[in-house]
């Protein structure tokens, strides 16, 4: 019997006796190994690290720049950015040697000590401003609006990075209730919208969006409130064609409406306001939609 043989570097350098013995016993057994004429390292040096450090370059550079600019904390709105930065920060704190290694092999500029802090805007609103202060600022409570908070994945996972309990979050519910809205909930609130698979399995995203929207409608929701721009894109563009789509709001827009700000300033055009008005025959929202530029 003849077989192709991949030796690997260690066998050739520090375990030659093992190779000699192996070849010897195989010869006795009538088996011949033919060394691959050209081969490379199996790559263990890289796989042993367990971390793909290249993908940490961009977020670590952001954090290093933050410190170089003399700042400690930075606020971000995007769930994706928050998650990526917070995880890189976690790496910097728990495995500083990896950051040093990356810095040393990439020409400097990634010298980061883990002392920065990444805040999601929801952190800021919940923990620094406080829901009580938000409630106090409300001018036009969203009394007749029934909302379905959608969390998706990046805001909550993994534990230790996420803002709230990954399975039973209450953050958006508490926030919406403080605006005077009625909250309905359901099991699909924390399911990923599928954005990761948008290219490979486009149908999956549509399917998930459809199911979630249906759950929200069944629960009596007049709008979906969410935080992540990727989720927003999917919910705004991939709702099933039948019937008018369920309006999709960022939580910031909901807060703005409750504060009595001009919808235009909140990036809500007439079409969106009408959709909201259709969903909610609320006098307050109706007033808002027709009070251009009027803030309280």
């Amino acid at each position, binding site marked *: 019997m003849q077989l192709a043989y991949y030796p690997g570097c260690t066998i050739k350098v520090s375990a030659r006796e093992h190779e000699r013995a192996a070849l010897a016993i195989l010869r006795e057994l009538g088996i011949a190994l033919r060394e691959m004429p050209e081969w490379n390292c199996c790559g263990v040096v890289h796989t042993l690290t367990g971390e793909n450090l290249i993908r940490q*370059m961009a977020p670590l*550079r952001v954090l290093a720049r933050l410190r170089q600019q003399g700042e400690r904390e930075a606020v971000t709105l995007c769930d994706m950015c928050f998650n990526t930065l917070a995880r890189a920060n976690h790496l910097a704190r728990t495995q500083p040697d990896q950051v040093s290694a990356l810095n040393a092999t990439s*020409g400097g500029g990634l010298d980061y000590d883990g002392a920065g802090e990444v805040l999601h805007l929801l952190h800021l609103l919940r923990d620094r401003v406080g829901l009580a202060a938000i409630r106090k600022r409300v001018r036009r409570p969203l009394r007749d609006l029934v909302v379905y908070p959608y969390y998706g994945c990046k805001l909550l996972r993994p534990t230790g990075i996420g803002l709230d309990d990954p399975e039973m979050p209450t953050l958006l519910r508490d926030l919406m209730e403080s605006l005077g809205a009625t909250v309905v909930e359901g099991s699909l609130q924390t399911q990923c919208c599928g954005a990761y698979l948008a290219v490979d399995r486009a149908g999956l995203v549509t399917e998930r969006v459809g199911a979630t929207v249906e759950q929200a409608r069944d629960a009596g929701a007049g709008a979906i409130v969410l935080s992540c721009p990727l989720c927003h894109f999917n919910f705004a563009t991939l709702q099933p064609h039948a019937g008018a789509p369920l309006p999709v709001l960022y939580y910031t827009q909901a807060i703005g409406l409750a504060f009595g700000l001009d919808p235009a300033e909140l990036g809500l055009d007439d079409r969106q306001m009408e959709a909201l008005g259709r969903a909610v025959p609320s006098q307050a929202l109706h007033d808002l939609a027709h009070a251009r530029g009027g803030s309280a």
Partner: protein
Amino acid sequence: MSEPATLVTMELMGKEYRVPSGLTILAAIEYAGYKLVRGVGCRGGFCGACPTLYRREGSHRIFTALACQTLVEDGMCLVQMPFVPVPTKPYDLHGITPQPTTLLRFFPEIAGCVACNTCTRACPQGLPVMDYIQAALRGDIERVAMLSFDCIACGICSSRCPADIKHYAVGLLARRIYGKYLVPPSEDLAVRVSAIEAGRYDAELRKLMELPLADLRARYEQRNFETVAEQHRDHSATQRYNSPMDPVDYQDELEGV
């Protein structure tokens, strides 16, 4: 040189030469006996024809420079890079409507930027190349135009990029879009062009052309001068962004490694 220069050793394409210190790399190559055709151009730091790759003793790094703008060092091991192919598909600038995604559409490979910063470290003009690629990615055409403005298209960035980005072509398109679409056209200029096309100055120019020399000299001597101070205008957009300066010399790495 009035005082005799000390000699340094450089290794040029595998051969050692003793050359006077204080010469630029370009002059040192010529001193060594080369008559260059490739890898040389304006000799003044403007054309980008003389990118040089080199290593220094004691460092594993590849350094980059313009041969006409950098002094030769003892122990330098160098080669000139005559050409970096950066082919781009032809486009019609006049048919472009600038959008945040315009640059990404023409150069989809910029999405592959991993923020490794190799381009910035390699730029002999000291430009924040990665920053302008990142700005391109997020559709900030003005920022790309400003940050890339001092680019001389030597191509070193593109030769070193792990994502195969065509940096200088991205900058060039951004600047052309900015210059054409994002800055208002000059009204004074439009008025003057119409006047010229209507023949407003023809008679007076003809009169000057036919004037006897002595009279023309008199007209010349009688000119009144506008002073610098008569023009008070806010600084142009190109001047709001300070030009970034020369690359950091990664001296610390030399000592550290």
